[in-house]
């Protein structure tokens, strides 16, 4: 078949390995004792150079493989520094900063994720970061944090710290015009959001199957059952579109920008909608800090802010599958 949406053997292996790592080292429980996620583990896994060519020190996998990995990262609420590192490594390479790229891939140069906020930047996971990455409108930029003397603060998410700075206070290491890199960043954000949507769907369904009220599991009641069905629908459509966008971007097809924007839109909706319903289904417990539900909500907001809200009418939406040539 020339069209095949099954996982390849390679992909299955990456996923298995990633799941083993994440279950062992990144259980959601770890977030109750906040501290920076160990980037060594992420780097040792090869996550930060997964889709870079082997001659550049990467692992030579494709966009679709990397997307699958970041879905798993989203399920485990891995620090935004992982996504930032993967994008920053590419930006460094395109800027010809080979040794910086190597240090990022190796986990030696930690990268914060910079969100634009008017004339200011909000940096996610700035702790110990040597640089920050931001992107938008077809380009990506690296910022030097080494001399910035940033002081980080607690975010609403106990497990995520942030720092704020005027944008012009942070020196540029370089800015590269690269529509594909910007699209890839959007795609990885969508992947992480999808992972959160999957995890909250699973949490909600699991709880609805065991929590008893009025003499039966609450999942037997249509109101809760239909909430779960809506979570499943939002997740499935976002998941399918994410794969499609990854394939199209990987093939450098002309509709990549539209497909990625659609994936981002659907993933944002799924992650936030599911996070909300998950809290609601967990009731009073869901509103307490003792339940993990709020962690997914807060991270979903952080990652949604990392993704742009693309204008879905700016590109052509193709009716037919477009080929490269």
């Amino acid at each position, binding site marked *: 078949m020339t069209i095949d949406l*099954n996982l390849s053997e390679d992909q299955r292996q990456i996923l298995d390995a990633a799941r083993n790592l994440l279950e062992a080292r990144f259980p959601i429980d770890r977030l109750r004792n906040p501290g920076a996620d160990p980037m060594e583990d992420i780097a040792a896994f090869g996550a930060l150079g997964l889709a870079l060519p082997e001659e550049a020190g990467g692992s030579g996998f494709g966009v679709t493989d990397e997307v699958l990995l970041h879905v798993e990262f989203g399920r485990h609420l891995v620090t935004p520094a992982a996504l930032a590192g993967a994008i920053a490594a590419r930006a460094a390479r395109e800027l010809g900063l080979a040794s910086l790229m190597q240090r990022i891939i190796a986990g030696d140069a930690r990268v914060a994720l910079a969100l634009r906020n008017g004339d200011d930047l909000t940096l996610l996971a700035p702790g110990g970061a040597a640089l920050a990455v931001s992107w938008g409108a077809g380009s990506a930029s690296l910022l030097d944090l080494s001399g910035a003397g940033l002081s980080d603060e607690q975010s609403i998410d106990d497990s995520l710290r942030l720092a704020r700075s005027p944008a012009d206070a942070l020196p540029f290491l370089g800015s590269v015009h690269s529509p594909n890199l910007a699209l890839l960043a959007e795609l990885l954000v969508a992947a992480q959001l999808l992972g959160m949507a999957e995890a909250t769907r699973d949490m909600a369904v699991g709880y609805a199957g065991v929590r008893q009220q009025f003499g039966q599991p609450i999942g037997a009641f249509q109101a809760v059952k239909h909430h779960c069905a809506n979570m499943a629908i939002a997740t499935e459509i976002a998941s399918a579109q994410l794969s499609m966008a990854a394939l*199209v971007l990987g093939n450098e097809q002309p509709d990549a920008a539209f497909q990625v924007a659609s994936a981002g839109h659907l993933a944002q909706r799924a992650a936030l909608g599911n996070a909300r319903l998950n809290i609601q289904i967990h009731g009073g417990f869901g509103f307490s800090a003792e339940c993990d539900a709020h962690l997914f909500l807060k991270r979903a907001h952080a990652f949604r802010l990392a993704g742009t809200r693309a204008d879905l009418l700016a590109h052509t939406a193709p009716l037919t599958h477009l080929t490269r040539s």
Partner: protein
Amino acid sequence: MQLDLTEADLAFRRSAREWLAANTPGEPAPHDGIAAREFALDWLRRRHAAGWAGIGWPEAYGGRELPPERLVIWYEEYARARAPSLLDPTFVSLNHAGPTLIACGTPEQKAFHLPRILSGAVLWCQGFSEPESGSDLASLRTSAAVDGDELVINGQKIWSSYADIAEYQELLVRSEPGSQRHRGLSWVICDMRSPGITVRPIRNMAGETHFAEVFYDNVRVPLSNVVGALHDGWNVAMTTLGFERKTAAMGLQLALSVKIEELIALARPRPGSALAERLGDLRAQAAGLRALTWRTQFRAPATAFDGSLVRLVFAELSQQIHRAAMDILGPDMLAHGPWSHAYLEAYSETIAGGTAEIQRNIIGERILGLPRGGAR
């Protein structure tokens, strides 16, 4: 995962595009009655004559046994050419009855019916719903008593599309007296010209009469018309359900995408406006729905329940699109026209073939494994 079309695929696309450009009817399809029948059959006959009917069907019955990639290309080109809606009087023949016979029919049933269906010689209608068993299909009561080598059918069906202009009906009946729920049903081929059948068309809210009630008064059907095993009709019907929600879905979805693009062209929304966001959201949803359908086609395992999810997303997206049209087109939508008509027709999307509420139950129970409620 891969998504690569070959040169041969592209050649196939060109040939489909050329044929459709030359042959797609220019006039709008009539909505009901004999005119709708003739239009739909004529269009099917033209496709059949040129080798574009049932391109995924086995060659033995007139098809071309093309793989799913080619079907996708065909449906893409079909939508691109603005060809007539697939939801025409031939829909049940081509997408319910035909595939069910291919999957469950006897060699004789297949040899007799499939070529007739594909060549546009006959039309089929569906006979599943009953007045008292709308969403609760398993509660159906139309009876079929075995009498020698015949079934004698009594009862009533409803919401049978195009029953007034069809030759055959795929009919679900209770063949085992006293049986409960899903057990004891049979799926039979009913000749609509049989004595004892009365058809009463029902006008729908869009003003058309493609639905009908069908009354059965000692209608005799040979036992050889049972498809699958006697009393095993529920399983056969579930096969049909799977097909309904899979095979033609691609074409129907792309037709929705065509509508979204038409609306964008009509509305020309200012960037950042509420309308722009709404239309952008519809576009993204349509893209996601298409991706979802590709997934059911090109990823194993796919189940009939995936189809349930796709069907529901399709239904609600269709209604959202037509509502947007209502808001965009203003007072013109109060007059008869293709958009106002489509808007009204779209209300059936979340009702016919299982309400949205039932689809959500199915997703919750069959896909997610949530418990069934005593009352739901």
